[in-house]
């Protein structure tokens, strides 16, 4: 259902979609304001790179750099408003089973080429392949500025879900560790939904056991403030 507006007169949302992303490849989907966009891993350890351009103007794109400044943080979290290079929110993070992503690193050359090809295949013309939102990529930013890149903790089925605020063309690349393009092997799924109840149930939020242990020993008996603690979720009927 569309966003709960005072004036509900609006066209129905476009159809829902499930788009598999092959290993080493990229896909595009169109999304409309009010829809839900989910990116989901199919295999453990998989990362995904997200790009978007507004339908109204391909010169306005999703920017990790402007997103950091807009939110005043180097990190991508629940509730983060992802904004364009013109500082307008385009996607907002509403659910996230992994909660480890990256807003700092560039896309690989192979991903940029895959996205350019996917965008062209879909008939879109964009002035630039911008820098990506690196989903499921775990980087630890240390106080001295050091970026520590860790193996992705993603499980099969980890899902990151946003509400769409600007009509957009979205591209998702699924980098292959070997740089090999394996069109027969889908490693990421892009889901577009009109109802949150139409999504599968999220995995329990991933907890970094090593970090939790470190925090616990550091605070010696004081219960550690684990941001990712599981919170009760509002119940809703599933059909």
């Amino acid at each position: 259902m569309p966003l709960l507006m005072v004036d509900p007169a609006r066209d129905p949302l476009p159809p829902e979609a499930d788009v598999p992303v092959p290993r080493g490849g990229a896909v595009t989907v169109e999304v409309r304001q009010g829809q839900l966009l989910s990116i989901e891993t199919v295999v453990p350890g998989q990362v995904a790179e997200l790009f978007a351009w507004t339908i109204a103007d391909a010169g306005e794109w999703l920017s990790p750099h402007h997103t950091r400044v807009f939110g005043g943080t180097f990190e991508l979290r629940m509730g983060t408003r992802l904004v364009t290079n013109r500082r307008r929110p385009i996607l907002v993070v509403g659910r996230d089973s992994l909660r480890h992503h990256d807003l700092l690193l560039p896309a690989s050359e192979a991903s940029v080429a895959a996205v350019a090809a996917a965008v062209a295949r879909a008939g879109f013309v964009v002035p630039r392949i911008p820098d990506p939102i690196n989903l499921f990529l775990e980087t630890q930013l240390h106080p001295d500025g050091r970026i520590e890149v860790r193996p992705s903790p993603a499980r099969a089925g980890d899902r990151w879900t946003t509400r769409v605020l600007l009509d957009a063309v979205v591209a998702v690349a699924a980098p292959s560790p070997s740089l090999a393009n394996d069109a027969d092997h889908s490693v990421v799924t892009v889901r577009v939904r009109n109802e949150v109840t139409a999504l599968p149930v999220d995995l329990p939020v991933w907890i970094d056991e090593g970090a939790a242990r470190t925090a616990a020993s550091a605070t010696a008996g004081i219960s550690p403030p684990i941001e990712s603690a599981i919170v009760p979720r509002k119940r809703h009927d599933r059909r």
Partner: protein
Amino acid sequence: MRVRSDLVVAGGFGGGWEAKAGEFVTVVDLEGEQTGDFIAFLAQDPEEWLSPVHCREALRSIFVRAGDQLVSNRRRPVLEIVRDDVGVHDATIPACDPTRYAVEFGVPGHRNCLENLWAAVRERGVAIERMPEPLNLFQNTPVVGDGRIGLTDPVSRPGQRIVLRALADLFGSLSPCPQDIIPGNGLRPTPMRAVVGDGPFEG
């Protein structure tokens, strides 16, 4: 030292520069506490530019320091930091642009780094959609608790400088940032000097 160009850029405005491979670009913070947004393109192909995003990957850090080789969006070294009086620079904050002021501060029509930087390179055929992320000289952006971006002023003092050696033929621009609403330039944009020559500028 043979000087190719010597430019004083007013605070909040922009200016262009060019350097041949092996030449030195010296940027002086004349009055101190001033951020200078800095971009560079390869003269042979302006589709290749100095990329702080790729520098972060290559250096595995959001900060740069003396001795670092700074890379392009094609992951090739294009500049090397040969002298750095300050040691505090930013490689993460995008240039302030019209929407920074209009949307986030409610001030349309403010001078901004994006247009300053672009005005100095557009004659070379650079489209505004193809402008790179800037390296923000002297900008002070610490990582504070819980991964947040610290907002504070540069620690640079009058006359302090950074010297970059060009590793290819380059052109680019410099914008002493016009931000006068929040910390970043001590709430007072001031001029910077950019000198290109066959050695570091000592004057």
